[in-house]
């Protein structure tokens, strides 16, 4: 989740309230963000992904001031009329939309530029999904000439100087050489044309969502008026992103002007900072939280969260992306009420507890084995192909993972004995006998299943000490099967992991349940073991089925 660093002094000035560091940690975190750190100069805050509007000092101060009571209800933003025109023509199906605004009279300084860049970045990463859904851009107004066009062009015809780059290059080169180009080129991979903004003087302003022009798309301390745009795949999403930007710039002291977007025959005026109206379901909200507040109290709490109220209707600020259902209002009411103030209560509702029968069965087996002085181990279901096959002297098909970060753990196991032998290998320096057992899930391809994979739980037992043998492991098997009041057969088989003539398949009523035998010395050598190992593995799902309980 994204964290933002904000200037403590500026923040407190914007709220209009004096707060100690403890207050900030306590109160701000009850507002719905996580306070990571408060130091002398900075507050580091983790913002949850549903609230991109809090990704700047201004957004956060706006929310905090209503929450802490230094202001109340919906903050109004005026959008002044203007003649700025943006034509949206021949855009790409992959990247069709643009929304824009103009903000004037900003007094940028180093600090503020940093703020805006941080907001731009963080919104790009979170709300706009690493720019896959959209990308924002800012331009000094005096460098560009309206009407502006958002369109697309062949990469070799897009030639301009990207931000902080020494010279003019083509789009193809930008994607290969420019750091931002390299970082985001995967978004536009395979696109024949690329999106561009171009102004009335035919200057290329930017190539969204990759990088702006250095000449006309760079904000400096001299910048006073800016052109803001967000482009992307989803009209609603980029609108919210634009609103978040513009509201922050307005809070910074700017005056907002609309732009007229011409999409063929349709025209839109953006930004639209009018709040959306949502009818408040007071009963629903009370019920969900477990309160009995009257309408006035609920309205008051909504105002604390920055909503406007008009005739039992909530006015949802244009920068809020997350109010899509009545539950979201309920959540904000609960936050405003204070989670700490909610009295916990367990309802007197009788329900009948029930433990899973198979889990009970597993526990009984574990108790039997503990009674035989065996030690339970707990191993991962993820393992390596090598551990499952070549080191075990055998071949077995494993379900593989597409993208594991760990080479040692990139398949799902098909049997459990190898995991236990690996443990014996790692414990050679400890006292013997090392008689261990473990439960594990195993995975096999199976077209009949919803996931095309069948899973079952296995029990593996390894006895390891200088004199262990087949007799000893068979005694353990006898104890288990006898405890279940069943009778088993053993059929001789060949299995490369075991010594020939000392390995068998266990079955009950012709249902195969697993293997038992003495591990082959070649396997012991592969695992650097110097003591013999007698082992068995049982399919517990099958065994459980045979119990008919």
């Amino acid at each position, binding site marked *: 989740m994204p964290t933002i660093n904000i200037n403590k002094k500026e923040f407190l000035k914007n709220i209009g309230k004096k707060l100690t560091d403890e207050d900030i940690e306590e109160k701000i975190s009850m507002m719905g963000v996580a306070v990571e750190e408060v130091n002398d100069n900075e507050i580091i805050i983790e913002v949850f992904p549903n609230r991109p509007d809090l990704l700047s000092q201004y957004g956060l101060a706006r929310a905090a001031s209503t929450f802490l009571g230094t202001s109340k209800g919906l903050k109004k933003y005026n959008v002044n009329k203007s003649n700025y025109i943006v034509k949206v023509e021949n855009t790409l199906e992959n990247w069709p939309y643009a929304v824009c605004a103009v903000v004037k009279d900003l007094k940028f300084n180093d600090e503020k530029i940093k703020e805006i860049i941080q907001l731009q970045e963080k919104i790009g990463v979170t709300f706009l999904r690493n720019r896959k859904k959209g990308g924002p851009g800012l331009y000094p107004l005096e460098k560009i000439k309206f009407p502006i066009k958002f369109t697309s062009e062949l990469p070799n015809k897009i030639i301009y100087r990207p931000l902080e780059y020494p010279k003019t290059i083509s789009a193809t080169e930008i994607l290969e050489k420019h750091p931002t180009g390299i970082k985001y080129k995967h978004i536009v991979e395979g696109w024949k044309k690329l999106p561009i903004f171009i102004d009335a003087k035919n200057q290329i302003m930017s190539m969204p969502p990759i990088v702006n022009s250095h000449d006309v798309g760079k904000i400096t301390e001299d910048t006073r008026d800016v052109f803001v745009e967000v482009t992307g795949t989803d009209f609603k999403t980029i609108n919210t992103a634009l609103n978040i930007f513009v509201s922050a710039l307005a809070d910074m002291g700017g005056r907002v002007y609309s732009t007229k977007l011409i999409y063929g025959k349709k025209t839109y005026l953006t930004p639209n900072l009018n709040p959306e109206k949502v009818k408040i379901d007071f009963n629903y909200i009370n019920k969900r939280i477990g309160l009995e507040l009257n309408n006035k109290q609920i309205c008051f709490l909504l105002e604390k969260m920055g909503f406007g109220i008009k005739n039992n209707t909530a006015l949802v600020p244009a920068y809020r992306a997350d109010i899509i259902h009545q539950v979201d209002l309920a*959540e904000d009411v609960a936050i405003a009420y204070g989670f700490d103030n909610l009295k916990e209560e367990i309802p007197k509702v009788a329900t009948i*507890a029930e433990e899973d029968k198979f889990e009970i069965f597993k526990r009984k087996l574990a108790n039997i084995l503990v009674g035989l002085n065996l030690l339970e181990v707990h191993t991962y279901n993820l393992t390596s192909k090598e551990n499952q096959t070549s080191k075990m002297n055998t071949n077995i098909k494993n379900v593989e993972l*597409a993208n594991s970060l760990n080479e040692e753990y990139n398949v799902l196991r098909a049997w459990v004995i190898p995991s236990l032998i690996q443990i014996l290998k790692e414990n050679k320096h400890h*006292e013997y006998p090392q008689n261990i057992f473990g439960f594990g899930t195993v995975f096999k391809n199976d077209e009949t299943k919803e*996931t095309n994979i069948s*899973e079952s739980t296995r029990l593996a037992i390894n006895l390891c000490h200088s004199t262990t043998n087949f007799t000893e492991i068979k005694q353990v098997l006898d104890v288990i099967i006898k405890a279940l009041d069943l009778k088993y057969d053993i059929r001789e088989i060949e299995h490369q992991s075991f010594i020939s003539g000392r390995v068998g398949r266990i079955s009950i009523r012709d249902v195969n349940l697993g293997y038992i035998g003495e591990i082959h010395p070649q396997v012991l050598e592969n695992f650097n073991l110097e003591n013999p190992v007698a082992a068995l593995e049982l399919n517990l799902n099958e065994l459980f089925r045979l119990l008919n309980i």
Partner: protein
Amino acid sequence: MNYPKTYKSNNCRNFMEIKGLVNTLHSLERKLIPFLDKYSNFNEIVKNSGMQEIEVMRSLQWLENKQVLKIETKETKLILLTDKAKVYKELPERIIINNLSEKDTTLEKIKEKTKLSDIEVNATIGLLKKKAAIEITKDQTLKIRLNEEGKKLQSKKTIEEELFNKLLKNNLELDSIKDLEKLAFENLRSRGLLTINLSKERSIKLTDLGKQLVKEKIDTNIIESLTPAIIRNKEWKKRNFRGYDIKINVPSINRGKRHFVDQSIEYIKRIWLDLGFKEMTGNHVDTAFWDLDALFVPQDHPARDMQDTFFVGHNRVISKGKLPEELSKKIKEVHENGWTTGSKGWGGKWKPEIAKELLLRTHTTVLSARTLSKLKKEDIPAKFFAVGKVYRNEALDWKHLFEFYQVDGIVIDPDANLRNLKGYLKEFFRKMGYTDVKIKPSFFGYTGISAEIFAYNPIKRQWVEVGGSGIFRPEVTKPLLGFECPVLAWGIGMERIATSYYNISDLRQIYGNDLKMLREVKEFIK
């Protein structure tokens, strides 16, 4: 083997203590004690007691531990003649001097007369020359004769000889020889005629306690081990038992044992069962549909990224599973426009291909989703829990596991609310030993009202983040249940609780399976 009792204090003991001491004496000690009064030398004790040397030594050590006696060891360095020297009755120089006169003679003649070897003759002539006892002249052959000094030696013994003669009779202690003899000692040693042998001599000195003990009447006919024979022949009625030192440490043994994680899982399960919850279990591999889509996680959510979630497949190509036909229609609607839930949905197009992707479940909440889909209206109110493995594509290090446990719970109840959620969580954590629970606003895609759970550990005196919770959004519950009903839900990290209980700082230790640690670690008892 039961070792005899050890006494630590050396204070004057009363009568009872002496009796106690006698009672715990081992049969070997009993056999030995009568001889301690008469003999103090170890070898003599061995000789007279008729016991084996090792038995005597062991008994003496036990008695020394009980402060009955002190074993004193004297180390002496003894000078011995070597095997080579033992052949001689007198030293070669004496033989040669006795065969020399003032008249010249030759080496050949000396050898003939003395029957000494070439080497011995040559060495001895050299020695006498050094002592200035002979004159050697060189003609055609070497001529040797005694001089005045030599003549004196014919009637007088050298210091070496004196030492040699003493040693022929007795071994000497190195410390006992005089300064004058030391030179002779070095001389003879350099000629390989002497050697030094270290010998230890042990002797026993009784303490006051020991002196009292030897006067006691000691029963030597005690029962050391109770055997079937002794029971059968009722011998135990006639004889006394030796008392053991019941405080002594005994060698450790290993027991069979459940893994400590499974112990804590059992405990956690017990709590939910006590609170009236039913257990949910299910597959580890599932489709994204159940793990994410059914939980209203948007299809462009980072949880679907390759770096966060394990997908089944090969070389970054993800395998697909099957979708439940009816339900996927509803889920599609919910994502695109909110369906009949009153929500706006996420907008955009919901793609079944993305939902088919196979993954290792990222949370046990997938089990909750499946449970809700099977629940009928007449089954509610209902409560379920799961303790199961979940997977995250993390590199393994001290604070990251890729495979770990999550505890999930859901309460399906038309009247369920946020205060109830707090109530269930508080009760669970109280039973886990955490005295208080706090919830803080948070965000999870599938809950409307989301809360992070913090529990107070009274021993460590700190709030710990233990999981996430909330009330499932209608976008989750309505398509799965088929009707509207609030569902409280939580997911709690298991390892956080286990590591705190077992004071484990490196998460890898939890599934490191160090057998020594597994054998020694305490039981999970709360």
